[in-house]
């Protein structure tokens, strides 16, 4: 099989969807003629599909979200690119009060196919307004689905699913993943939402990790095994909403320990959500308290000297998990 990058995988999903369904369009800033996507995801698509399907906008996020909602109401399947996920705040009303509520508010008469692609996470020091992981902020809003691919294979399959999911999907990508490679089939495929993946089997502890943190978890797991004989199972939920709590629970029943690793801020984070559900429903399975490993409650700084303290890295994960034994 071919190895391609996360960016290429995303592009392939878009390309194939656009080829097979003429209702699929893209809307965003710098996605067509200018940069072809700041992270290069839409490279070549403008040349292939032209300005009617790869729709460049001015710097006007409310327009982007409105264009997406409006076209979707009329049957299109827009894929929005918000250049940095941090900018979603500018058109937040469109997400919270319009997109998320269309199905409910119209009594099911209308529903939206609408993907909002959100490049997030700390990349290389872009600082507090360009580096956030905002998944947790959206997880609490009914009516939104949330996907967080951690690798190129999932990126392609989840995006294909997102495009006609029938409800708005916030599709969180990660800056540090765009250039990572994985085996990705050429032919189109879909990955069902709500199906977690066990990316490493282990017997001593379950680490749930999302997005870029999956690779951090794997690195930590290797070190834990090598140096300390701790055999971690790593689970990637792949979609935060819906969440495959059953798979996590099954693993926890086996390992009796749970850590949740994420780049979102600690307070109100994903670890809180997953941790609380496990505690609520499967407390008896736990041998020790769950451990939430997340970014500290600080705006994401620019210099590595601070980022490394704020955002969890392999060392912190190893240390935290050793502390659970």
């Amino acid at each position, binding site marked *: 099989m071919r190895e391609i990058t996360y960016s290429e995988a995303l592009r392939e999903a878009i390309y194939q969807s656009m080829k097979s369904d003429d209702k699929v369009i893209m809307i965003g800033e710098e996605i067509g003629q200018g940069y072809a996507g700041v992270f290069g995801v839409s490279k070549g698509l403008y040349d292939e599909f032209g300005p009617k399907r790869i729709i460049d906008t001015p710097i006007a996020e409310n327009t982007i979200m*409105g264009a997406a909602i409006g076209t979707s109401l*009329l049957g299109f399947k827009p894929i929005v690119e918000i250049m940095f996920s941090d900018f979603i705040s500018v058109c937040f*009303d469109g997400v919270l009060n319009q997109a998320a509520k269309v199905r409910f508010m119209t009594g099911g008469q209308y529903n939206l196919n609408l993907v909002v692609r959100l490049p997030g996470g700390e990349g290389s020091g872009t600082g507090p307004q360009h580096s956030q992981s905002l998944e947790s902020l959206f997880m609490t809003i009914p009516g939104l689905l949330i996907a967080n691919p951690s690798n190129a294979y999932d990126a392609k399959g989840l995006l294909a699913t997102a495009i006609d999911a029938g409800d708005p999907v916030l599709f969180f990508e990660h800056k540090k993943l765009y250039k990572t490679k994985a085996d990705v089939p050429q032919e189109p495929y879909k990955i069902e939402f709500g199906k977690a993946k066990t990316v490493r089997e282990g017997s001593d502890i379950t680490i749930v990790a999302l997005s870029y943190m999956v690779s951090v978890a794997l690195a930590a797991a290797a070190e834990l095994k090598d140096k300390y004989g701790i055999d971690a199972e790593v689970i990637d939920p792949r979609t935060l909403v819906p969440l495959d709590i059953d798979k996590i629970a099954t693993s926890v029943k086996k390992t009796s320990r749970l850590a949740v690793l994420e780049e979102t801020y600690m307070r109100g984070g994903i670890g809180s959500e997953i941790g609380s559900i496990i505690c609520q429903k499967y407390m008896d399975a736990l041998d020790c308290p769950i451990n939430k490993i997340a970014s500290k409650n600080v705006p994401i700084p620019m210099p590595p000297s601070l980022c490394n303290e704020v955002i969890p890295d392999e060392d912190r994960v190893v240390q935290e998990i050793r502390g659970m034994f």
Partner: protein
Amino acid sequence: MNFNQDLFLTFFEKMYLIRRFEQKVYEFAERGLVFGSTHLEVGEEATAVGTLLNINKEDYLIATHRGHGQELLKGTDVKNMMAEMIGKDAGVCGGRVGSMHVADASVNNLGAQGIIGASFPISVGVGLALNLLGDKEKILISFFGDGASNQGNFYESLNMAELWKVPVFFVCVNNQYGMGTAYCSTCNIEIHKKASLFNIKSDYEDGNDVEKVYHKSKELIDYVRTKRLPALLELKTYRTIGHSAFDKHPYRTKEEIEDWKKKDPIKRIEATLTSNGVPLDTIDDIKKKVEAQIQDAADFAIKSEYPAYTDALEQ
């Protein structure tokens, strides 16, 4: 101008329908049947009627939070409208959302937003979709209030409407107030002039004269429909009642209100009808017909059940 009796009788019937609908909703509100708040358009009926009589069923509508008339004129059944008002199962949105958010896919009513200003970017998006579909016939009529025109989204969307050349007819129901705030205290520019900045065809008209509204909007709608370009019409009018059902509107003087009551669009059309020799009986018959319709709708709504909760709503 020739007196087109049928047209004027239609004006009358439709405006009277809205008036009686609103009064019934008010009555329901007084009886505690209307949950939340409801925004009635008593005094503004000519704006919905004059514009929407030029709109086809296949055209799209985005109404406002004060949109019962707009929604009725687009073709939603009075019964289902009424049931929605009091949150009943048979309501057009299943009774889930009530007065402020009526959507009706069967008549291409895309739904009203309770967030002032939110409808502008969505309207641009709908227009964009029509362009992408290569549609040469359908347009979107998108209503908004004077107060909404101060939101940044208004201007941003006007620029986009022009840039993308979308077939959207923006109608400003300028009732001169946003809640307790007079438009003139919030902005020194007339609303139709804001559209001119963006080179969008725009005009204004007496919003209490249904005939004028009808003709002016016909002209602009033809323009939007054939040229596939946006246009904006500002209609100056007045709500002779409060912002929401129980607002006693102390922020306006008695004189101002009385003054505008004299310009009531329904009274005006009734006078035109009689002065053109339409017999009182004809007018009365219409009133009775509307009355029966409203009563039926009210009975239907009352009899309908409140919606039951199902897990399927969870998302």
